[in-house]
């Protein structure tokens, strides 16, 4: 039988406990068992008391007119309370790409209400006018899948006029269960067709931290799209989210610990590099300096900010189109 490994997706590969024990039956062993029991119990108790209830309201809007009438779409935070305390001022007051990053802890629960300010048009010829939120990774029941009835067989699960159902708003319920720690995308799955319009800007990230995990000086969410990075910065202290947009210039203080959350979106398969930096391939103790990442995969790593750099996609066309941004360390 193998040891169950502690689930620790951030940082080094680690084991559940120390492997060397004195021989069974000795009083030392009994003491160790008792201590371990107490540790686990207190962890459970602290875990339970920290589990928070998040009430979130998000809307969707058209943005980024290219100057010739073609628009993208984006999510915008309307309000977010954690156990009743509002944290809405962490977020941009506009619809952004990527959408608001929702930071959660294992054990939390989420109730998210989605609004549709893109269109109130009816669905004609099967073209859906309903937007949704489909999330990866966390626990949710079928009614919160964020897909159309043709996929889930029960409902058009979004806000607006779907091909078969209309909802003014739609409420999603997520359980952030133990084992769901990680960074997960959320995106539309309903607009236009059962594939959704995630490729038109309707995407964002959910960061689930294990209970009691350390913070970072800065965290960056970088989505790798088909022709540009779409990213944002999160201040580790104030939790403020900023710099939303294309190939953002990211900043860090020298020698601070920062965490990058990469998610790919669209059709391209990318090769990401942060020039001059190495990091641990997530969940291993192998150092790498580049990562292959395909749509909706995630790749989360931490580095100590040492020197100025660029983050880039080494894919032939994307590189020549200028798909890169600066990482300034001062």
């Amino acid at each position, binding site marked *: 039988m193998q040891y169950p490994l502690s689930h620790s997706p951030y940082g080094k590969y680690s084991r559940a406990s120390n492997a060397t024990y004195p021989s069974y039956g000795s009083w030392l062993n009994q003491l160790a068992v008792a201590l371990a029991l107490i540790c686990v119990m207190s962890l459970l108790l602290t875990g339970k008391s920290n589990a928070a209830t998040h009430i979130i309201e998000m809307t969707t809007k058209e943005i980024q007119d290219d100057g010739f009438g073609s628009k993208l779409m984006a999510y915008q935070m309307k309000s977010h309370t954690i156990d009743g305390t509002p944290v809405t001022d962490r977020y941009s007051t506009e619809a952004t790409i990527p959408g608001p990053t929702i930071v959660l802890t294992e054990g939390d629960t989420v109730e998210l209400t989605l609004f549709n300010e893109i269109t109130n048009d009816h669905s004609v010829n099967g073209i859906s006018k309903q937007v949704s939120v489909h999330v990866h990774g966390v626990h949710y029941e079928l009614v919160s899948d964020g897909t159309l009835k043709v996929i889930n067989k029960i409902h058009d699960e979004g806000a607006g006029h779907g091909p078969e159902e209309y909802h003014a708003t739609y409420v999603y319920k997520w359980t952030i269960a133990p084992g769901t720690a990680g960074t997960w995308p959320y995106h539309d799955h309903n607009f236009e067709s059962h594939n959704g319009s995630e*490729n038109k800007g309707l995407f964002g990230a959910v960061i689930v931290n294990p209970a009691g995990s350390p913070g970072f000086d800065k965290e960056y969410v970088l989505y790798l799209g088909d022709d540009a990075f779409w990213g944002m910065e999160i201040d580790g202290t104030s939790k403020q989210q900023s710099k939303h947009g294309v190939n953002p210039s990211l900043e860090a203080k020298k020698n601070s610990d920062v965490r990058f959350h990469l998610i790919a979106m669209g059709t391209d398969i990318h090769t990401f590099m942060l020039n001059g930096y190495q990091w641990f391939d997530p969940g291993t103790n192998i150092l790498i300096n580049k990562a292959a990442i395909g749509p909706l995969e995630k790749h989360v790593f931490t580095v100590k900010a040492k020197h100025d750099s660029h983050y880039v996609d080494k894919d*032939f066309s994307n590189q020549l189109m200028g798909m890169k941004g600066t990482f300034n360390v001062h």
Partner: protein
Amino acid sequence: MSINQVNMHIGNKDNVMKKNINIYGSKNPSTVLAALLFFVTTLLVSSFALAAVHTISLTAETLPNGQLAYATTGNEAVIPGPAIFVKEGDTLNVTLTNNTSAQVGFTIPGLPLPSSAKVQPGSTKSYTVNTNVAGTYVYHGGDKALIGLFGALIIDKATGPVDSYVNDDGAITPVMQADLVKQYVLFMVGSTFWGTEIAADGIQKPLWANPNLGAVENDLVRFHILSVWPGHTFHLHAHRWLKHGTTTVIDTKLLADGSDSHSFTIKAGSGVGTGSWQYHCHLFSHMEAGMHGSFRVDPVGGDGASVVGASPYGRILLGPKDEPGLVTFEVTDEPASWFRSTRGDAIVGLGLDIKSKSLEVMSPGSSVNFVMSETNAVHTISTLLWPSGAQHMPFDQTNAYRGGAIVKLDTPGLYVFTCKIHPYMFGAIIVDDPETEGLDLGNPANEYRIDLVTGIKNLPTSSDLAVRLLRTFFVATSPSNWQDYSSGLWNVRFPTIPVRISGAPFGNIQAGGLAAPLTILNVVDATLPAPVPPSKFGVGEVLVNTQFEKTAGKTKPGTITIVDATNWTVKRKIALPGINMNNPHNMWVSRDQSVLYQTQWFDNKLTMINRETGALIKNIQVGYAPSHVMTLPGTDDITVANNGEDGIAIIPAGSMEVSKIMPTQAQGHTSAGPHGHWISADGTKIITPNIITGDIGIYAADGSNTHARTTTGLGAPGAHPIAIGMMPDSSKVFATNLLHHSLSVLDGTTGALLQTISLIANYNPIDGTIADNGEGPYGILPIQTPVSPDGKAVVIAATGGQILIVKPGVSDADAAIVTKLDCDPGCHGVNFGAKQNGGYYAYVTSKFSNRLTIVDPDPDNNGDLSDAAIVGYVSLVATEGTAKDDTISSLPGFGGNGVLAVPNVYNGWVQNLPDTWKAGLTDAQKNPIGH
């Protein structure tokens, strides 16, 4: 976890510790030695006792739909092939008997086989497989893998758990083979899932294409995801699993290009419950192409049964079984057979005069599957026409991509698929109601009518337009229907099987439709006169991309045919077998005319060639499906339209690699897919016809600004703006809309739309009458549209077989069509060159003939274009005197697409010619609008 569980957890740990201590922890040396000896012996004995010998005998078979597949000898061939489960250290011998008519192999990427040679038809080969490293491996048949020769080899560790899963509480829990309720093998190939279900007792059941998988809540289910060729990302809703070799939990996994695999175990519905949970490839283009299925988790007590997908044995023409069927098309770079049914040869051999390999027939409720297996390019798989009222139509993807497509067709009638990037690729499926006589060409519930992608609805299939589209399909996809001017005769054969259309041609509708063969459209032994060239010679050379000409040293088609304009002979053919030059489409030359720039449209290369000797200079990667190439007249920098992508590649003069790609759209917005661009004479603007977004883009040549994005085609969906011409003073831009049959005229500075001229105003699409006693100019499916260097005439090649002469209209005057000349089938490319002693010729190419058409837009040079005429033809077939770098093997001189006259006499470029070239030109030709 409850406290009791915690106790058990720790208790178990101690048991392990006890074992370990007995072996390692004892302090007595002799005990240690004895223990070690015992341990080692046990290990050896256990390996011998557990290691098995597997002899798997496989055959390779041809399925009813033409696909190839592996079978275990004596059983039905299946896709994926039989899943092979062994343990590390087992002996695995595989024999393969090839019962197909193609060479097949057996290869396992990552596991070198002692012999990987191919098996000839009828022969048998044996392979011994090294099973020393546990893992999930792809086995496949080599070249033919993509059409069904692939399967999974799973090597598990000899003892212990086979995998781990994430439990409801997050615990990573090991799982033994015996704990698994079932396993699934899912192959991701093209844009289709192919599945096998393996029950706990090892019985394997084929699930075919895009199956719906089943399980009962809390079942432990192991998935083996594998892929061959282009990469994918696999995602399953509401579940998460351990990424093997790490401690990371994921729900989406990359399968890299080439071949790849990913195995994982889940507890069905863990933490989320029952339901239909979608599984799919998360590459957006593949989602649009149909790459998804359902994982249905039933409540405890339910059957958790899988639902089989579309099968190659099912309800297709001559299919043996009564189950939903599947026809498959390979997408290729091969002239005419760009969509080739996997049983295309068999269909041609049926003796029904079907000369096309691009036609399939199946029953309602079956599916059509595409795989881009023999092409180096990106494509879309988009419907051009379908039965009126058919569901889920149009079928389309936003961008061009590598992969395939799959779609279920329920409504009877004709469906024609094309590629938005290469719009003369055609594949047709007739979904036929087996109860009625004749193959249904339209929706029987709607008088056998069809809808077109440009918004035309309820078009009767007896209409003239529908008949022309049918004729276009049967000519384009059958080289035997092409015009070979060296043979002197033209034959067009249509299939002899009756088809059901709206009524008698042309236009009448009768109740219940009419069942009759299309053979009334046959052309029998029409005379093709030998090409007679013009009496007046041209200056320099005419370079023609004979894009379909095949040569012995290459697998891919296409040559550059160089015609000497001073004597109208074919002086050189450039095939470049050394680089397998693939479908050369369009050309330009360097300022001094010495370097020829050639795009490879079904590939991702720009090729630089020594124009005088035909020698290769460099083959440069630019971007997918490069269509047109032009230089900036001021700097001689090279611009290449990446038709399959989203920008213009720039190669600075004197360099041989792309320095940057200028985007044709704002970041995050839909890729424009630019095709036949042009550059203003002053070199400041690049103008692109954007196929995917349906507009004309005007961009600053230095990339600093987008001046305009003007929608064309009067808002018709899929209007397909395809080529650009410009006045020599840049005052006006001309753009043809291929599927809208119109010419858009735009202001050259602001991009504002000035006019949309319908090229079919004089044409009645229902009964086919042409206004003006048949003289009313018309053009169907217009393509290239250059303006003569002196700004006096626009000449348009329309692939429906017409050349249109258009007066451009100086300053505020409107442009207007003046006259129409006849052109060969597949009329395509036009460019102007100097005539000796003044004036210009328009050189016109056609895809489905092998002669060059030479037009003089104004023979008496008086400014009145109504005497525009075809003044001669030149055969594009090589003669004894033609210099060649390869032997012509078939389709001689065919496939005229791009054409370029050397010297380049367009305003802006002609002024920069070396004196030696200028010597042959008149003063007016050296300065077309400034003299």
